[in-house]
């Protein structure tokens, strides 16, 4: 076996007595912990960590990393995920010891540079979104939604509105929207999409009454369409005393072109790990700052920053604040990256990003439309959805096409979402991809379409060239093996797993 393909677990590579890290031997206290600490507090069970040398560990993880797709190695046309390039200068900045070695409870006089970054980032986000104030605390988009729902609740409660029990979400919304609203006992009501894929105004009107707390909206929506009736939608909801929540997952195509704040949204979350170029890290960390209009400012989680004659400082929260939603100040490392990105874009670059994102998406849509059915009509914003329903007759599903794309070196688009489109394949190229890359992807898609006609099995059983073929996810869910401990207990050790 090639060492680079030794895919045993670190636990399975362990050999008693091996060490990677040497720690100080000297003890200062002259006390023996085993004698000094009461017996009843001491750990009795052993800790089954693996024992490996440093080279073993490094090689283990580097070889693991090579089994991944990533933006730096592959194109990710993942709809609603905005997998744009993650600039290296962002990483360089975030790794400066002057930031990484800051304790969150240091006196503000010793962290003025850091606070200035957070302050200015908030200023830029306000400008870009048209909102009046931001909390940077939320750790991710869904955490921002959660914060947003708390703000909705606090706002209505302050106005004696405890009968507002409904949250409206379009049927094309992200799953986090209903999940976030339901966490607070809100009754989630789905609003239908009209035949063009936008919010059905008639259906919306049907559901608008004095019980509506909020409408959560992604705009452009998950079909890649700008809600052209947006001004009417926000007006209608406001007329009924409801608030408007903007899910910022798709903010990228609006940079410099239009602002959620101007559309009438009261609350917004922004995904710094999408629009503002910070890396996804295999699932996180993200950052989900939440912005509000003036009437919601008193409810924001604390602490917020303030700027005084002496410099930047943390202000005490307003008495109406919902309270903190997280430890300390949020995912600061992610914010530094977003700050650097915005400084590099500057006022000149903002709109160039959204324009290129929209152009790339429309180009791809145009090049693919003769081979695959596009779910919507007319131009799209930064993403579009294909419906692969016609291939079902050959037994090929959208997910299969996604898997086959992996063989061509492309990450799969978002599959089976949004739920309103059967066999959906949602494609978002982002602005950072070169036309050559788009053309290669288009070519691959066309080749797969041919394959479906000539050799559907090849598509249905893809991928064929990756480190593993399709995992049996039914087995994984029926008999969950979630740790090495489970393996030992269930005796699913390597030899057997391979057999």
């Amino acid at each position, binding site marked *: 076996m090639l060492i680079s393909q030794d895919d045993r*677990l670190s636990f399975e590579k*362990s050999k008693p007595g091996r060490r*990677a890290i040497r720690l100080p031997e000297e003890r200062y206290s002259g006390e023996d*912990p085993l004698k000094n600490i009461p017996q*009843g507090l001491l*750990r009795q069970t052993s800790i089954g*960590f693996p024992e490996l040398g440093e080279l073993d560990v*490094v090689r283990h*993880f580097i070889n693991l990393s090579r089994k*991944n*797709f*990533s933006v*730096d190695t592959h194109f990710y046309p993942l709809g609603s995920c905005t997998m744009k390039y*993650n*600039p290296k200068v962002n990483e360089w900045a975030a790794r400066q*010891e002057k*930031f*990484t070695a*800051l*304790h*969150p*409870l*240091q006196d503000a006089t010793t*962290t*003025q*540079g850091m606070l200035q970054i957070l302050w200015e980032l908030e200023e830029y986000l306000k400008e870009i979104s048209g909102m009046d104030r931001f909390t940077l605390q939320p*750790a991710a988009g*869904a955490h921002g939604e959660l914060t947003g729902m708390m703000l909705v609740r*606090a706002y209505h409660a302050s106005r004696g509105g405890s009968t507002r029990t409904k949250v409206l979400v379009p049927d094309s919304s*992200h*799953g*986090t929207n209903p999940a*976030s609203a*339901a966490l607070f006992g809100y009754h989630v009501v789905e609003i239908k999409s009209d035949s063009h894929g936008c919010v059905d105004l008639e259906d919306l009107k049907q559901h608008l009454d004095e019980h509506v707390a909020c409408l959560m909206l992604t705009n452009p929506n998950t079909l890649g369409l700008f809600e*052209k009736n947006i001004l009417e939608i926000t007006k209608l909801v406001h007329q009924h005393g409801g608030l408007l929540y903007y899910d910022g997952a798709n903010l990228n195509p609006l940079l410099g072109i239009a602002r959620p704040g101007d559309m009438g949204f009261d609350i917004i979350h922004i995904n710094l790990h999408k629009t503002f170029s910070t890396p996804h*890290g295999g699932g*996180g960390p993200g950052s989900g700052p939440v912005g509000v209009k003036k009437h919601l400012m008193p409810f924001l989680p604390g602490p917020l920053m303030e700027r005084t004659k002496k410099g930047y400082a943390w202000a005490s929260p307003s008495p109406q604040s919902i*309270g903190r*939603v997280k*430890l300390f100040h949020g*995912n600061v490392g992610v914010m530094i990256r977003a700050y650097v990105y915005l400084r590099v874009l*500057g006022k*000149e670059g903002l709109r*160039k990003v959204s324009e290129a994102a929209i*152009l790339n998406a429309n180009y791809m849509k145009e*090049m693919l439309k003769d081979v695959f059915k596009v779910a919507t009509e007319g*131009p799209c914003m930064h993403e579009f959805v294909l419906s692969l329903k016609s291939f079902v007759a050959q037994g090929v599903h959208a997910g299969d096409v996604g898997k086959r794309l992996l063989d061509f070196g492309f*990450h799969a688009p978002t599959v089976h979402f949004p739920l309103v489109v059967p066999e959906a394949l949602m494609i978002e190229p982002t602005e950072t*991809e070169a036309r050559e890359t788009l053309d290669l992807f288009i070519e691959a898609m066309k080749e797969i379409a041919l394959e479906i006609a000539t050799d559907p099995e090849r598509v249905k059983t893809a991928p064929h060239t*990756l480190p593993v*073929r399709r*995992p049996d*996810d039914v087995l*994984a*869910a029926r008999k*969950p093996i*979630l*740790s090495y*401990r489970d393996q030992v207990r269930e005796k699913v050790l390597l030899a057997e*797993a391979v057999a």
Partner: protein
Amino acid sequence: MPYLSLTEEEKKSMLGQIGVRSFDELIKDIPVSLRDPKIVLPSSLSEPEIQDLISKLGRKNTSTRDALSFLGAGSYEHFIPAAALEIVGRQEFLTAYTPYQPEASQGTLQAIYEYQSLMTELTGLDVSNASHYDGATSLAEAALVALKHTDRPRLLVARSVHPHYRETLCTYLAGTPYTVEEFGFDGKGNFNREEFAAKLDPGVAGVIFQTPNFFGNVEDLDGVSEKIHANGSLMILTADPLSLGLFKSPGEWGADIAAGEGQPLGLSMEFGGPYLGYFVTSRALMRRIPGRLAGLTRDADGKRAFCLTLQAREQHIRRERASSNICSNQALCALAACAYMTLLGKKGIREIAEINWDRATYLRGKIAKLKNFEVDLTQPIFNEFRVRSKRPFVKVEEKMTAQGIFPGVLLESFYPELKDQFLVCATETKSKEDLDRFVEALAQC
């Protein structure tokens, strides 16, 4: 423009291929009244300029490397192995997406699986998720699990649990039918057994403890889980994961859920984040776990493979009935912790815990001899302890800061009754000279 690839010529030809005359035709759905807002942003910076700016802003900070810091209280200064930094910096991990396509994500998936495995070893519990946002939110989610699992309306939480954690918990539960009640601590700062027992009634869904608690005390939880379980409630424990190299694990204490902050496992302090919420439970609660789980299975050829599993719990499937709304987590932080724990290994995790205990024990002994400061030498601790200053702490802090020392975190700002008391933390990062220098400086106060 940096990061963009289309040339003007390409743009023109693409517009032509799309069949529109101008870009504006593509955004015709956006009402004209909304378009082209005035946005005030600074001008674009070139790379040398941004590097210079960042360096300048950095110089306005005094980091814990510039100063001698004894700050802890939920964020800890620890050494990070160079190899761990290299692993986390690996772009194939850093710039990868969530592993929804398992064939293209075996690296991330196996690393998560190994992280889960290491966390079950460390906590002595059965099932770990792939990570949560941080200690505070992870603990709040644990509380939600207890409320749902027992179908009871109340939570008990020790007042010796980190104030930010308790505040986050209250924020999460405000306006819901659920309530939180606290029980206090005794003169030594350990949870009040009588008050805990008195408040434990059939309405209690779960009880939350922290060890070492916010004051640095290692809590004696003997007999606690038995009481809680006899009452039909769940025991939730938040523990500094590094302390578990030496002290009893949540599993050994009989906890049902271990939820807390994984930052000490190889993550820098970074002014408060990104950190790592860990979440580990008994097997009975497996299907209530919030967030992603990586599982082991086989691929179509029978070869070992990893994939995300039990996804029907999650928001992208269950929508409004999901066990949690979490989507993005802190995967890269879990990778950092995974690399850190793997590098430390079986012996290293114990040694690092002992060294932390040794540094804090040494320092506490020295401070005990100072006439203007009081410590409790009988209280078991890990790497942090409580000090009472006989002089106003603000004066002490001022004097120390002037000498480049951050003496600790003032407790009074969290607990008004603990006047002039502060938390001092000493980890493996402190040499004997550092500790002696601190003691000498305190002696002058």
